[in-house]
């Protein structure tokens, strides 16, 4: 007993210093008026719930929550989750060469660092970008994609970047569905539709929820991609919570307020995860 505690001690200490410590500090700072510069940087005061009161009265915050939900819904749930599942289904049972080729292409998006993904998409969608060049070559006019359809643009980039992850999770769990069960269902006269909704989906429900939680948490934290592609603009049309948080902390120099927003982001992540678990009635 003592020996196991002794062995775990190093990791406990490291966890306390580098994981729990910053979380507690974030929690504390979100109740202060800590600033990056100005008098408040020198004399930080405890201001209770003031940051949270300001936040809920701030139209910028409300807009950011809305943008975050839209971004989450379009790129994580509809995009990565559904598309990932469809890809996995389409590849199920296909021969290995086919699976490998398609798999490698999709995974290329996933292994590319977020900042590189962002630059690739900027190069593709910008005014003088590849897409406009293609349009011009067939006689169509250029479109300022990143400014006319900013949210759609960042969503597509995020889907391109993250779908491979969902696809791999679903591939693994679809492979675990016993062939005998499927065959039995087919012999009983189940259509492909029934097979999918009555047999396969219930059997991979656990993976769906796990993936949903992972993809949601990951998408809630997407910063580099949006910041590089649109900077949260034009106006505030792609200003999700991480961008809003960064702007408050490092552009408006209000670190205390910024940490308060990060705390809300954390709470949203927890609520979303619990919601998935409850609504799908699975045990994680």
């Amino acid at each position: 007993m003592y020996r196991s505690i002794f062995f775990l001690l190093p990791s406990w200490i490291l966890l306390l210093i580098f994981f729990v410590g910053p979380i507690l500090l974030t929690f504390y700072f979100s109740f202060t008026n800590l600033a990056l510069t100005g008098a408040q940087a020198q004399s930080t005061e405890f201001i209770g719930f003031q940051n949270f009161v300001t936040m809920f009265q701030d139209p910028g915050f409300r807009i950011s929550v809305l943008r975050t939900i839209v971004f989450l819904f379009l790129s994580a749930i509809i995009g990565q989750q559904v598309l990932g599942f469809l890809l996995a289904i389409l590849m199920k049972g296909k021969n290995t060469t086919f699976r490998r080729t398609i798999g490698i292409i999709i995974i290329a998006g996933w292994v590319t660092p977020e900042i590189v993904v962002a630059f690739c998409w900027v190069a593709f969608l910008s005014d003088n970008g590849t897409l406009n060049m293609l349009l011009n070559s067939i006689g169509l006019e250029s479109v300022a994609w990143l400014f006319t359809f900013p949210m759609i643009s960042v969503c597509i980039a995020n889907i391109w970047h993250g779908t491979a992850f969902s696809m791999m999770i679903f591939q693994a769990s679809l492979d675990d569905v016993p062939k005998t069960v499927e065959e039995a269902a087919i012999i009983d006269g189940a259509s492909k539709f029934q097979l999918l909704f009555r047999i396969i989906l219930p059997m991979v429900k656990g993976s769906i929820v796990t993936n949903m939680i992972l993809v949601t948490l990951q998408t809630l934290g997407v910063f580099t991609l949006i910041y590089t592609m649109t900077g949260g603009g034009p106006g505030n049309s792609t200003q999700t919570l991480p961008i809003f948080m960064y702007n408050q902390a490092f552009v408006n120099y209000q670190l205390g307020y910024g940490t308060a927003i990060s705390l809300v982001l954390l709470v949203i992540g927890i609520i979303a995860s619990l919601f998935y678990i409850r609504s799908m009635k699975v045990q994680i």
Partner: protein
Amino acid sequence: MRLKYAKKLTGLSIILICFLLMTACSDEGASGTSEGNSKDDLTITFRSGGGTNEGLVDWLNKNIIPQFNEKYPDVNVNLSPLEVSEGDYFAKVSLLLQSENTAPDIVTEDTFILNSDANAGYLEPITDRVKEWDEWGSFTENVKAGVIAEDGEIYGVPYNTDSRGLWYNKELLKEAGVSVPWKPKNWEDIISAATAVKENLPKDVVPLWMNSGKATGEATSMQTFEMLLYGTGDPLYNKDTKKWIVESDGLLSSFKFIDTIYEKDLGPELSKVLNGQASTIAYQQLMPKGKLAIGLDGIWQTGTWREGGPTPWPESSEVLGFAPMPTQNGQEPGTTSMSGGWAFSIPSKSNNKDLAWEFIKMASTKENNLKLQLKDRNLTPREDVAKEEKYQEMDFFEQASSFLENTHFRPAVDKYPNVSTVIQTLVERVVTDTITPEQAVEQYKKEVTSIVGKDKVTER
């Protein structure tokens, strides 16, 4: 046997933790520490993102550092540039200055944030040092004001200042039927000249370029919004009552002017003007190619076009004109401008303050400051340099210096940087048609009040 193994493992783990903690908390790699070194280190931090400050770097490397090393051969002068956008520079500097391990010995500070950084305790007051320095008397009085914080102490030595006006392409305006030299008398004249360009010249010529987005940061507040606002007679801040003016006719007129430019399609495409590279697009790409008719910006743009600059354009002195920005209706004194400038400051957590001060003194002499302006193409903060023939001969410097007559400075108060970001956001939202000018004024009032407090705002 097993116990022995366990003991070994425990021992190893403890050593590993100690090592990790030591690495995490160690001083190594920190700049400016002189202990144990045979040479002293002097670190200078400035912004160098996107080709900015090429002149400054050249001047430091070729002129100042060799001079300094002649006098102090045992000092290593390290340049530690921050390769970031303008907005990120201030945040990064604030973070660097918080710790002895990261603070440089000299930092370049924009005068608009100097007061905030001084209030945060990041900068060393140099009032006593300046008093003993016989050259301080040669600095222009109103430029000196930019480095004096609210507590009355001096926090830096200015190395440049600037003024802003309307760059215009003489050939394009002539072609559009506007008489040259162009001297707009009021805002209406600017709109009509831009309209003429739009109507008479090809579609790819941008009639009027003003920084209009959040991405261009302070340039949007100062070069665009405040150039307009101070021309209406309504300032941002009332120095006498120490209150922010959150409701005035000037605020509404300024937002309306910006709105008009984009409503009438006289500005550039939004995708070009709302990004961080806006200034590069306008003055390194469009203007030299004759695709931009009028641009509201600062004198330092000549640094872009000088020989050896980012986009050498020797013909610029012939092709371009630099007109003063008129007041809204041409009311007294007829023209307006905004001035800022940069200063060398010593961080309070620097390890080599005396040497840093020696360096700043050497860099700020008459000869050295003149050399800097010849490379960097900004206005000098020194009266004696301004009288030098070489300085006066530089293209457009006569006009730029004359703008200083009716120039304004940003409020040197703690909350200015925060108010400035509100302005940037609102300008971008007006430009993108998300809100009307009236709504912008309403929001300005609300947001500034919440930043500075109800007791520090007033109406006009």
